[in-house]
């Protein structure tokens, strides 16, 4: 076998494995086929669209936070998406957290500080399930990475509810959503299009809200994405140049051998 042929066969096999095998192993989503959306943070040059993340925060706080927690994100982290200290204090100040014990050995409540993590709407998982017909609303801090399909899945789920007249029948307390594995989800349709009045004046629609909150949740799961993609570009460019130089040196060293 000539080296060239070996390489070609090797590459083809690798590509086959990469496409079939791993996609099947890890991408297995049991819901309806997702439509790929365009996201500001897609691709090598992708970055989070700040204004979309901020609008998404608004949707999150006004709608989703009534039922979901976001336990790995602290209010102080909002500096990363362009809020200043006073704004963050104001946001945190709307919530109460339990703290203590104090010097008298008693627990007390106080307003949340920038250093606190997003306050959960529930005291614990039992209460969360009890308040939602026994279905636990998952924490959303990692949901973007925790579901096959990522952002497309969240968007699909939020916009995928059908109207009252759906012909799909699901059990009492469940709602039909083709993107959810099994098709029957315990979360009632959360977005209708008039849920928020955007602070930046953008006209609200269901699609707009879904896009924005999905962008926000993607940031929440992968806050270092911008830094990662920026650094990656520099490192890879450096390595490509280095490889070219090393290849030239290798040729030079080996010139007399063959």
């Amino acid at each position: 076998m000539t080296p060239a042929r070996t390489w070609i066969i090797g590459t083809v096999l690798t590509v086959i494995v990469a496409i079939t095998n791993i996609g099947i192993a890890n991408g297995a989503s049991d819901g309806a086929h997702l439509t790929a959306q365009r996201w500001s943070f897609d691709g090598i040059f992708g970055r989070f669209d700040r204004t979309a993340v901020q609008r998404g925060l608004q949707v999150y706080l006004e709608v989703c936070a009534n039922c979901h927690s976001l336990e790995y994100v602290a209010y102080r982290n909002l500096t990363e998406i362009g809020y200043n200290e006073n704004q963050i204090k104001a946001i945190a100040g709307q919530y109460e957290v339990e703290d203590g014990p104090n010097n008298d050995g008693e627990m007390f409540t106080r307003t949340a500080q920038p250093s606190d993590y997003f306050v959960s709407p529930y005291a614990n998982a039992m209460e969360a399930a009890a308040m939602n017909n026994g279905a636990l609303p998952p924490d959303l801090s990692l949901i973007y990475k925790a579901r096959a399909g990522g952002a497309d899945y969240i968007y699909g789920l939020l916009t995928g509810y059908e109207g009252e007249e759906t012909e799909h029948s699901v059990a009492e307390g469940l709602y039909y959503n083709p993107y959810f594995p099994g098709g029957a989800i315990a979360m009632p349709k959360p977005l209708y299009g008039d849920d928020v009045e955007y602070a930046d004046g953008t006209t609200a629609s269901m699609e707009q809200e879904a896009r924005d909150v999905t962008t926000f949740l993607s940031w929440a799961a992968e806050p270092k994405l911008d830094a990662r993609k920026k650094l990656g570009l520099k490192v890879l460019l450096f390595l490509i140049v280095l490889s070219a130089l090393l290849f030239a040196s290798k040729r030079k060293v080996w010139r007399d051998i063959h």
Partner: protein
Amino acid sequence: MSNSSMGKKVVQWFDYRLPIFTFMHHSLVDYQTPKNLNYWWNFGSLAGIVLVIQIITGIVLAMHYTPHVDHAFDSVESIMRDVNYGWLIRYLHANGGSAFFVVVYIHIFRGLYFGSYKSPREVVWWMGLIILLLMMATAFMGYVLPWGQMSFWAATVITNIFSAIPLVGETITTWLWGGFAVGNPTLNRFFSLHYLLPFVVVGVVFLHLWALHRFGSNNPTGIDTKGPKDTVPFHPYYTIKDLFGLSVFLIVLLAFVFYAPNYLGHPDNYVKANPLVTPAHIVPEWYFLPFYAILRAVPDIWFVEAKLAGVIAMFTSILILFVLPWLDSSPIRSARYRPWYKQIFWFLVIDVIVLGISGAKPPEGVWLILGRVATVYYFIHFLILMPLIGRLEPTKPLPGSIDESVRQESGTQTSETTRKHS
């Protein structure tokens, strides 16, 4: 001038008492290497470098990681969010694990193609297989550490394998777990061993190289080196070639780290472990899939129940490689001169890929059947074809020397070699 000669004197003084510099010089600089090695020979040094990357990133992770069921997942998240460049360290380590297997699998298939396992390199081959087994144990336990859903359930499924052992199986499993289910004691011991085993691997790598340097590297012709015309010193020829290979390899690895860091991972592992919720599909990491397929392919055989038979088949599929030097009956090493073996070699590659794909699928329907056929063929390859083909195959003539084959390949036959032939 006085400075450098001063340094030289110190080195000489030390080397006279502990000849470590002489040793390094012998094994990295003077070391005579066949001059016809192709790029498939880059993967050995790459494997060594990936091992170093894993150890360095692993030690940094361990400084921030908490091996406790209540804190492990959170501590990994804090590495990702709060530790400076923690995301980079973790993504390097997670993707480095996959890269390690890519490199080592290529390295092994290189050995299979060019007959590097044959006399006198059987012990080199064995040490390599021991490294593979240790790596598998290490990677399996490492995958449990972030304590996500796949961590927990993979640990449960794989440790349950041991319960298939007759009579003592249950006892062994309980002992491995340190309890009656995968729990905190399991996580603690996995962390301890995950830290330890890579250093054992370093030790076996030394034995691997020691045995290798006894007779030197094999080469694409598979014939022995016959003199100085066949070889070049390792430095600078192979140091520069390996550096170039490393640089290209890093482009691929870092493209994953920076642009698709979770592509090879499973989404469920970003969900905290929950013993009460079983994931819809429990699949191991991609590098275990062929073995997983063999485990699940075997049905009940006579009085042996399927689970036990599967376990035996899976372990045998690796152990069989230890006796490969004696199963292969051909006196010729390289597949270049073995037309039949070359065919079945590529067939084996395809077979292992089919096993990998069927390992990723639920064990039913056509994939279960394909998995079974591929499992049977895997064993036929080693147990029947290897002994048989070596005896029957019409082989091609070997070149007189490495030097001669290099000249033939580059088409620069000198009058001297032409004369020898005519």
